């Protein structure tokens, strides 16, 4: 049978089990969009700017464990998508991005809406393809999904010129499996190294596990918790590893890093054995890798061999799938470390932090207080999508976690991530309670996507901290070497209640901590989406 490239493309996506595409149509992607029309079994969300198609695909991928798919047109469509792709790359999110392209015969002539998108995204895609023959499409799509979802996951971009989408192919061959000779990710950990790790754990007196985003990507949270519990090892997390275990778990010490919990950083600094699992030792998590290296023994477990030794030399490197490695470790029985004294000390640090009193101000609410009160009220498996800025730090530090997820742009720090990511979450799991935490800066980067919420009648609860400034930059500008706030005033912002109402979404305001419990109850009881506008003083800092 003869098929167009566009139909081959969609057929290939169906064979990969794709159920939803986030996209924005344009001239050069029209044949693919047209072919999509014949397949109502694939859902489609029209975003309001292409970047958000990437973030929605990311939210979708992170809760479903499947590859998120976005599809946009050439030129500005493709360049707008770049931030979405780069955000996914930094957080190793499995994604396939499809871009339309000008006719292949005209490539390089700078014609209307032409841009070298594969060239542009090479530094932040796991791989990318410019397809010049439609007969190659089934193989390329198969490879793209395989690459995006295996080893260390990441975004893969496929650029398809419009003439290739229109090209007719006689009996296209859809491969069942894929083998790429230059791509063989490690799965099992080296047995000898596993043994060394087990011995090191057994001999340690002050061990700490540091769980990163790789634990989630490998679906290894159960194994991680089992390891921690079996040997009673305290656990700290990076921002990407948050919610691996509940806040009230006796071994949980919170988040490390420049903006982390004090008790987690203390544990890290004083430990004698640091077991890093799926974390890449980036500057925001581990400020001084040289210091850590000098002070304690380190075990680094990661699927990507290049992460070992990139920022820090580990005493015992262990490369492979985090889930498989943890299972290998669990299969060995070694005596538990004698660390009771250590745990007692850490418990003291932790209690001091959890009992900390937050400041109060008339006519406003403190974000940390809102987080504490909100977290207690959420479903056990709620998904909380968090933006970037002060709101991110307050949420990551103080939002009580149960058995849900906290999704944020940890690597690239992309403002405007939370709202579209939440839409992606809802598409994947419509029944799951989904909450957005954002500031008045980040909300205005993504509020056009309220349209997606409205169109699908989604129930997403949005907590918007309004302090009228770009809070985190404001906070930085107040410290040396800077000379005070400048260019961070959000004057000219709209009335957010009116914006919400314009999209048919109700809103509430919280400006009195005495009434906060009642307001939060009302907010969460609203049927469908609701925005809670929290009045916050511009002088609030993340260390208050």
């Amino acid at each position: 049978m003869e098929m167009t490239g566009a139909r081959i493309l969609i057929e290939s996506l169906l064979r990969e089990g794709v159920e939803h595409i986030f996209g924005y149509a344009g001239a050069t992607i029209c044949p693919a969009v047209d072919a999509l029309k014949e397949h109502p079994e694939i859902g489609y969300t029209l975003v309001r700017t292409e970047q958000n198609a990437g973030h929605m695909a990311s939210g979708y991928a992170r809760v479903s464990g499947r590859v998120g798919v976005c599809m946009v047109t050439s030129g500005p469509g493709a360049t707008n998508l770049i931030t979405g792709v780069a955000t996914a790359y930094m957080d190793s999110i499995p994604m396939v991005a499809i871009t339309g392209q000008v006719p292949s015969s005209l490539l390089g002539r700078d014609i209307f809406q032409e841009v070298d998108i594969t060239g542009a995204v090479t530094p932040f895609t796991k791989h990318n393809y410019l397809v010049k023959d439609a007969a190659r499409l089934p193989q390329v799509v198969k490879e793209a999904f395989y690459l995006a979802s295996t080893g260390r996951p990441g975004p893969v971009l496929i650029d398809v010129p419009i003439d290739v989408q229109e090209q007719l192919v006689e009996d296209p061959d859809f491969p069942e499996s894929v083998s790429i000779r230059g791509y063989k990710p490690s799965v099992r950990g080296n047995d000898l190294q596993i043994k060394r790790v087990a011995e090191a754990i057994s001999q340690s007196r002050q061990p700490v596990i540091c769980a990163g985003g790789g634990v989630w990507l490998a679906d290894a949270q159960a194994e991680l918790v089992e390891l921690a519990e079996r040997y009673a090892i305290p656990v700290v997390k990076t921002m990407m590893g948050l919610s691996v275990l509940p806040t009230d778990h006796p071994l949980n010490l919170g988040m490390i890093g420049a903006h982390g919990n004090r008790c987690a950083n203390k544990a890290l600094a004083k430990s004698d054995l640091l077991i890093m699992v799926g974390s890449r030792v980036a500057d925001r998590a581990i400020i001084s890798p040289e210091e850590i290296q000098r002070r304690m023994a380190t075990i680094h477990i990661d699927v990507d061999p290049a992460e070992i030794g990139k920022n820090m030399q580990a005493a015992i490197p262990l490369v492979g799938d985090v889930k498989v490695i943890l299972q290998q470790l669990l299969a060995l029985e070694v005596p538990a470390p004698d660390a009771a004294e250590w745990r007692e000390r850490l418990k003291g640090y932790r209690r001091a932090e959890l009992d900390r009193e937050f400041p109060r101000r008339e006519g406003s609410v403190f974000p940390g207080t809102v987080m504490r009160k909100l977290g207690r009220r959420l479903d056990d498996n709620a998904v909380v999508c968090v933006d970037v800025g002060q709101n991110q730090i307050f949420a990551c530090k103080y939002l009580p976690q149960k058995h849900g997820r906290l999704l944020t742009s940890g690597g690239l720090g992309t403002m405007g991530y939370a709202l579209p990511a939440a839409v992606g979450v809802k598409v994947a799991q419509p029944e799951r309670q989904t909450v957005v935490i954002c500031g008045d800066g980040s909300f205005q980067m993504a509020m056009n996507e309220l349209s997606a919420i409205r169109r699908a009648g989604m129930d997403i609860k949005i907590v918007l901290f309004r302090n009228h400034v770009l809070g985190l930059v404001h906070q930085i500008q107040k410290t040396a070497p800077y000379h005070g706030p400048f260019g961070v005033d959000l004057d000219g912002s709209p009335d957010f209640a009116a914006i919400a109402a314009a999209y048919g979404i109700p809103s509430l305001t919280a400006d009195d901590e005495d009434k906060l419990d009642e307001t939060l109850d009302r907010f969460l009881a609203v049927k469908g989406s609701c925005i809670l506008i929290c009045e916050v003083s511009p002088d609030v800092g993340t260390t208050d």
Partner: protein
Amino acid sequence: MKQTISVLVENQAGVLNRITSLFSRRAFNIDSLAVGVTDDPTLSRITIIVDNGNSVVEQVEKQLNKLVEVIKVRTLDENSLIGRELMIIKVSANKSSREHIMTICSICGAKVADISPTSMTLELSDTPDRVSTFEDMMRPFNILEVARTGVIALQKGGGKI
């Protein structure tokens, strides 16, 4: 310290771009880079000379290995590699200087590739330092143009990467 990395890659369009883009993004320095197809027409061999510390070279290897089109990466042992560079050099030459130039050519093992009433074009394939020595020896004769290929290298002995 200079080190020689031999990289086997898929012989496809765009691969070289990915490799050079990786070097610039990760702030690795390239001293020279030479690429050519191998006996297997689906494979190209890229020989890269880098001048970085050992830990950097290890990162270079690991990052190269992450590229899907890279099949194999090996840092060659400096003590047992055959590294060669080809230079074509054009110098001014007339009746009086030609003989001097020929003497140096025969000492260094260079060949005459072209000759004109006012110039000689010479070629030499040798280790990079000997090629540089020859270039230095030609300097007094007024060098008109130089082209060097960058080093290509293989490990000595019967093994292969």
